[in-house]
């Protein structure tokens, strides 16, 4: 029987079987300031070294301020964490893209940008959205701090072999401007649930996936974790090879590698997945989340469902939906388009790449942000920021009264000063609408960049299909 792409990568990276689990070699390790200090401490306590500093790359993104970089960091605890990463990288010889580096940015934006992310590799980071890198046909997974330490020390991880999950997105989108990769992945999570992918690696396949750009594929793979999957991936194709070419860390033998990638990095025709889910892109329209997990999502044309409708007979889900509506201060039956907003955030590892910013800017040119809304754009990296400024996007955003910021995770998780005030409601291009995610008592609605931009202008959600 044939093998799936994931199974091929797994087999290629198996070092040894140990008591029914597998020792897997890790090709690339990204490190950031929040989940690494305890790992480096562990190394010091046990007098261990970093086995492969040349395969390890660090940046600071989670708690960095996104205002003027020349000012000192006011939050002393954040400053301590950033300093700790600088010291650890120096001590263990790890390349660091620090606050003053032109390559600083969100780990999952700079990995691909610098050619660190490659087809067919294994990649880890102490961050659940490491699944992003699967867009290149890599097995990329988020890990806890103890496993960060484990990879630093051994360049390997002990893993249970995940099951394989095919998600096929057939057909084509009816409007490729208004209906985005974000809407595809939110539609999938709405259907399979936040635990639908638990214990699996998802391979996204089908016409609508092949049609996507690399940046859009990253958005899809990024949110695999919101369906509970260990990782998500897309088989590489010419778009992937073109993206990877000529970047800072792209291997010198790129031309040889590309032959190998082309021949081997695909699921065999006679391979079998452990499970499958099929959705048709032509049925997908812009999505807006209404609750406190990403599966609590509706079409922009819908009304907020009642807990009974949402739960479909599951008592604990019904209770969860009730709590979610209470937290979100929303009533069942309210049209999504009637939800009024205080804040708009365009940013995060899900949707802060150049294409996202171009799409968002396309609807705001010559318009102004609603007087009731405070809106901000946080580019995913310094490179994205630079490219966007070369295209004049910063001017378009600023003239519309959006704040134009320095790169970082920012208000996706609110570890820096960019947070929602209690009770504020935000249209956000990020990935999680959990309680308090963007600030204690803050309320998050997940949407695509173009939906967020349109909402900023009108002060409420609109169906952008009517605009573009």
């Amino acid at each position, binding site marked *: 029987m044939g093998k799936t792409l994931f199974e091929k990568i797994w087999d290629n990276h198996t070092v040894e079987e*140990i008591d029914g689990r597998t020792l897997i070699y890790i090709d690339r390790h990204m490190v950031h300031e929040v989940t690494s200090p305890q790992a480096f401490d562990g190394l010091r306590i046990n007098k261990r070294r970093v086995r492969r500093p040349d395969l390890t790359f660090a940046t600071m993104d989670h708690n960095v301020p996104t205002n003027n970089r020349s000012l000192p960091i006011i939050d002393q605890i954040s400053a301590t964490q950033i300093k700790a990463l600088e010291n650890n990288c120096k001590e263990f010889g790890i390349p660091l893209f620090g606050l003053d580096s032109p390559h600083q940015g969100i780990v999952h934006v700079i990995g691909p940008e610098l050619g660190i992310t490659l087809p067919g590799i294994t990649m880890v980071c102490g961050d659940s959205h490491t699944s992003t890198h699967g867009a290149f046909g890599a097995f990329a997974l988020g*890990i806890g701090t103890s496993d960060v330490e484990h990879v630093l020390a051994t360049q390997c991880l002990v893993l249970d072999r995940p099951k394989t999950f095919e998600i096929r997105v057939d057909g084509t989108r009816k409007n490729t401007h208004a209906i985005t990769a974000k809407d595809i992945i939110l539609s999938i999570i709405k259907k399979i649930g936040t635990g639908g992918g638990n214990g699996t690696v998802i391979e996204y396949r089908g016409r609508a996936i092949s049609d996507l750009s690399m940046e859009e594929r990253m958005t899809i793979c990024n949110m695999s974790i919101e369906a509970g999957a260990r990782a998500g991936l897309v088989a590489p194709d010419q778009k992937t090879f073109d993206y990877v070419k000529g970047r800072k860390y792209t291997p010198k033998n790129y031309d040889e590698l590309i032959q190998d990638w082309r021949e081997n990095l695909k699921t065999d025709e006679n391979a079998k997945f452990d499970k499958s889910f099929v959705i048709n892109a032509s049925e997908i329209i812009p999505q807006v989340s209404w609750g406190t997990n990403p599966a609590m999502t509706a079409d922009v044309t819908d009304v907020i469902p009642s807990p009974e409708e949402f739960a479909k007979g599951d008592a604990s889900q019904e209770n969860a939906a009730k709590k979610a509506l209470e937290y979100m201060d929303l009533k069942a039956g309210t049209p999504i388009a009637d939800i009024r907003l205080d804040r708009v955030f365009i940013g995060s590892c899900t949707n802060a790449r150049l294409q996202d910013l171009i799409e968002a800017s396309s609807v705001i040119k010559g318009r102004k942000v609603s007087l009731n809304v405070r809106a901000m754009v946080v580019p995913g990296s310094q490179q994205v920021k630079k490219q966007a400024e070369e295209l004049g996007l910063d001017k378009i955003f600023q003239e519309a009264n959006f704040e134009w910021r320095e790169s970082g995770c920012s208000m996706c*998780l609110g570890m820096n000063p960019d947070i929602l005030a209690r009770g504020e409601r935000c249209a956000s291009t990020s990935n999680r609408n959990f309680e308090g995610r963007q600030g204690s008592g803050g309320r998050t609605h997940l949407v695509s960049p173009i939906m967020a931009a349109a909402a900023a202008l009108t002060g409420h959600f609109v169906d952008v299909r009517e605009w573009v």
Partner: protein
Amino acid sequence: MEKFTPVSSIGTPLERPNIDTDQMVPKQFLKLVQRTGFGEFLFYDWKFEPDGRKKEFVLNDPKYSGSQILVTGENFGCGSSREHAAWALKDYGFDVIIAPSFADIFYNNCFKNGILPVFLPKDQVSEIMKTKSVINVDLKSQTIQYDSKSIPFQIEPSRKKTLLEGLDDIAVTMQYEDKITGYEKAH
């Protein structure tokens, strides 16, 4: 890591599905650079009002103080990979978590910190959630006992060994140094 020994305690019922790690340790507490002292932040925003008053929440109920077993809903620990969630649960005093299912990264993080996550069918978890009696969890025999009932549970043999013997995962992997070097030479 300390060896895992049998646990006897009443259970703390927290009936809600999809509890994410952001709830277990809100982000404002992720800035510490050590592994200890996270217990006081566990479920912080569910325990306290913005002004610091205690909310009505199971962890604020004195009845459950000292409980070492958390009994909860499906897909427990979804979301962020932050191991701070496991550190907080352990530091607070939970040694066992019983749920219908766990999110993968969280499940793995538990074993790294001496917490035993036990998954059981949903109806069995609901039953355990109702009992007021002491629950006995024995990893060696893979059984949970309460109210004269005895329920077996599953666990991967190597994970069981890690907990029972309190093994250092990294030291175990380092025993395969020649294999790792061999892999690197071949690739």
